[in-house]
């Protein structure tokens, strides 16, 4: 894992990484990947991946309104809102 790969990952994850911490991040993430590479030695031929411990499937509910609209309560904790909308920097010129 080199500096350019960390920079690419950080861009994908939308996390700013300061220049001073890139090398430390590269070295510790390389260590984690070395740890998880132990998995490659396991024989998993024909083993189905396990997504849920009890192999439960997604429950479905009727497509009906079940919750009250609490927009004001939710927007009260937002960093910036206006007229019931969330404010972000201009996206389209």
């Amino acid at each position, binding site marked *: 894992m080199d500096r350019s790969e*960390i920079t690419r*990952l*950080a*861009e*994908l*994850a*939308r*996390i*700013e*990484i*300061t220049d001073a*911490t890139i090398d430390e*991040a590269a070295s*510790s*993430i390389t*260590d*984690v*990947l070395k*740890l*998880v*590479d*132990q*998995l*490659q030695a*396991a024989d*998993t031929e024909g*083993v*189905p*991946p*396990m*997504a*849920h*411990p*009890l192999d*439960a499937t*997604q*429950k479905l*509910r009727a497509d009906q309104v079940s919750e009250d609209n*609490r927009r004001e*309560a*939710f927007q*009260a*904790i*937002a*960093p*910036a809102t206006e007229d019931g909308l*969330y404010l*972000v*920097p*201009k*996206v389209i010129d």
Partner: protein
Amino acid sequence: MHAKTIAEIAKDLRNKEYSSEEITQHYLDRIKRLDPTYNSYVTTTEELALEQARAADQRLAQGDNNPLCGVPIAHKDIFCTNGVRTSCGSKMLDNFVPPYDATIVENYKHAGAVTLGKVNMDEFAMGSSNETSYYGPVKNPWNTNCVPGGSSGGSAAAVAAQLAPAATASDTGGSIRQPASLCGLTGLKPTYGRVSRWGMIAFASSLDQAGPLTRTAEDAAIMLNTMASYDAKDSTSIDKEVPDYTATLNDDIAGMTVGIPKEYFGEGLNAETGARVEAAIEEYKKLGCNIKEISLPHTHLAVPAYYVIAPAECSANLSRFDGVRYGYRCETPADLNDLYKRSRGEAFGDEVKRRILVGTYALSAGYYDAYYRKAQQVRRLIKQDFVDAFNEVDIIMGPTATSPAFEFGSKGADPIAMYLEDIYTISTNLAGLPGLSIPCGLVDNKPVGLQMIGNYFAEGKLLNAAHKFQQSTDHHQATAPNLD
């Protein structure tokens, strides 16, 4: 008053030895006086607590028979509490006041329990020492140079320092059981799906499970009776009747077969810790249990599989923290991308960033099969080890952690050393099984824990086995030295 268990407090409240308001005030005073030493609480909810206590006193006067009515408890700061800041140990949520309660918080409110406050934790529950919290590390009441374990370190330290009789906690890879072991408490991680995850801030959704940290197995049973419920709001909640876990505490355990996995006693286990665990297993022999050596052959793959699955799920879950709808937002963002990147870069700590980046890598184009799919396959092999074992034994026992509490900073620089701290607890989360830790003695004047793993939904059996042990031994009664 502060040394009492929930069961004792419930009795005292009905005998009018003191009121809920009095014991609540007593705990609030202790927290104010003593917690600056331990840093176990992030927020205390004095006003709310006294209001709830007065309401509980009225219910008690009318003959309410819920054992939690009027009993003060603390909530891990991962559970959303309506109108009370819920930080998850992160700068990201330092200003986050949820407009709703987590299901388990609601369950405890209905039972009449009193909320003392919100307790400290590793940031987003990622850590085994409580050193990653934005609010500073929690000190272990047994030795304040040592960590309390993590991620539920605040929950464990608060109970061990007698700043709450019990606390809620959560466990993704050992975060209830390892702090229980390091602080001399009883800690239970229930079967995946037994307790609702709704309103519990998500780390790794296929592994996360809430559970109690208490002084005794009896108290854990009382806490679980209220915590466990089917919840339509959590799509992975299991619709299965919740038994009365206190009803089976005294069942006879003679004839029970206890499996001892040889992989849990190998290299890496501190010798004295191993000796205490073996002595506890001897005690079970005296109680009439049959002891049988077993093998869980894929144990060595649990930590590697976990560090693919947990980071992958965390990278997806934590994408919701974007500086738009709640939580931290950076100053004067240049554009939307800058807003995302700097809000996340400035507000997440190093360990959280590391896991998000590892997860992003594991899920990125071209790597999915080699990492995530492979880890999910290994996960099934680990589960199958347990399925095979439970064809032969009723319960599995071994150490909870490799050693007693370690000193601050001793593993901080090396994430892998910290990850290996959970080597005995992670398999249980991967398999979705219930696990429990109880104190089984001291090493260097610090507690060590015996871990028990049960079959799916066998929480009652685990609590029964733990209770019988606590009836015939006194390890759980040991308290931290120099406790005020």
